[in-house]
């Protein structure tokens, strides 16, 4: 992955997830951060910190981003969600507008 094609998502505990920009931009919130000119520091550094999203949840969200891309390209599999994660995941999804 070339650096300019990636973005670093940082969880509440400080774990870093380096993923493709395309994947991250499945989230409307992240898309806005990365594309609005000059207004976010995130745009320049390609890093976004989520102080309210735990590592477990952020990992699940990254998986969802890639699953969504696959789905859009025609590979329509099921996205499994562990029941114990649902509520927290939902709040994050709400925030990330995804």
């Amino acid at each position: 992955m070339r650096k300019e094609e990636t973005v670093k998502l940082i969880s509440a505990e400080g774990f870093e997830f380096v993923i493709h920009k395309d994947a991250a931009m499945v989230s409307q919130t992240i898309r806005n951060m990365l594309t609005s000119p000059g207004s976010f520091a995130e745009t320049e550094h390609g890093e976004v910190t989520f102080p309210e999203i735990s590592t477990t949840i952020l990992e699940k969200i990254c998986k969802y981003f890639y699953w969504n891309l696959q789905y859009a390209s025609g590979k329509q599999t099921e996205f499994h969600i562990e029941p114990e994660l649902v509520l927290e995941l939902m709040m994050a999804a709400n925030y990330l507008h995804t």
Partner: protein
Amino acid sequence: MGGACSRKRDHRDDEDDFHLGVSRRYCKSGSSKWLTTSFTRPVLDNQPGRGKGPSLMDLCIRKICEDIDKYNTFSMLPRDISQQIINELVYSGCLTDVSFEGFRDCALQDLYLGEYPGVNDCWMDVISSQGSSLLSLDLSGSDVTDNGLIFLKDCTSLQALNFNYCDHISDHGLGHISGLSSLTNLSFRRNSAITAHGMSAFANLINLIKLDLEKCPEIHGGLVHLQGLTKLESLNIKWCNCIDDADMKPLSGLTNLKCLQVSCSKVTDFGITYLKGLHKLSLLNLEGCPVTAACLDSLSALDALLYLNLSRCHHLTDEGCEKFSRFGNLKVLNLGFTDITDACLVHLKGLTNLESLNLDSCRIGDEGLVNLTGLQHLKCLELSETEVGSNGLRHLSGLINLESINLSFTVVTDSGLRKLSGLSSLKSLNLDARQITDTGLAALTSLTGLTHLDLFGARITDSGTHYLRSFKNLRSLEICGGGLTDAGIKNIKDLSSLTLLNLSQNCNLTDKALELISGLTGLISLNVSNSRITNSGLRHLKTLKNLKSLTLESCKVTANEIRKLQLTDLPNLVSFRPE
């Protein structure tokens, strides 16, 4: 976290809509109306705009609905999320009295439980726990009783309440909601227990904007309690046949009224005199009232009036109808099923703002139509069952904004239809008349914008179907004159915009016809009754995934075979015959 919450609180209400332009009458049966409105649900996987897979939010909500029994409470969630969960549970029919308990103290804003099965007083405690967050509540069709309404007194912010078809609510219950002074919308349709006595509770609801008491037969004398409700903009007392002239008096001071529906009451010309001061009134529905043209004296004072419905006012004759000339602002005028003749149409000449005119079943003929030539804004003209013939149509050829004409059961013949060929805005055309044939259709091929074409009783044959190829935008088509065979269907099979197709009464159609239309995947409603279709032809319908209604009466088709097809291939089919 939290994010923006998207709320949608606009109640569907087709009653006050002005149906300008294309009318909904293109369907033979009123019942197919719902085919294009309710029962449609966006499939989660196909969210418009997103163009991708289901959102994570939707997946989570779906997961919760699957495992709903595992959750005791949602009160820790932000309200916009719990709101989405309950909306989905209601929509999918998965909500029960037990799972509803999980929504206690969720500060929900909207609860649309209208027509939801099993809702009764036991649900009221959880509803009440939403407290002052609750803004909108729909309990129509529920078994909630007067006692259940006691619970609403804590929901002091309620703005909209709907108790349509609640047979267990009476005057006593109204007392319990009289303190909800934030209410702006209140609806109690078809309630025979509400009387003038109970309506005294309405007097406190000073913020009321919209009140709906349609089909409440015992409310005579109760409208006096509305006198102080000066914010009222819309009042529906349709089908309350107890309403008479005396009931109009208390309305005289409600000067903010914009929409008043008093159809099918006993109100006469005298009662209408009380409405003179309603200077904001834009819609007045007097359908089926015993009024005469004398009421036009009072109504001409209403300078905001745009929509006037006098249909089925059987006392309305030509006498006094010169007063119609004072209604130059009107956009919609319905005089259908009245006793007026061509003599009345002379006085409509100056109504140049008219966009819709209904003369259904009036005794008007070709001579009368000359008076319509100046109505350049006319979009919708209803002439069904009049004496209009081919000679009259020349008066319509200059009405270039016409979008909809109904000429069913008139004496118009093929030779007259040429006069319509320049009406390039036409979208809907009803030519359901036996004397119309292929020749008439040939004259209309320039009308390429047509979306609805009704040739129900016309004698169209296979060679006439050739002309249908011009109407590529057709969404509904009815040809039921008996003259079609499978060969004619070849010219229909490429009309890919079709959602409604009625080919019944063409008794020579076979399974081959179904094979030919199997590519019309947009079809929502299909009728091929009275034909030679058999069970083995049904397999051709497998591709019609959008089909909601299928009618194959008097064919060699069994209900059981349709049911099988429904299970395996037609998930959206909700209505079929034989059943």
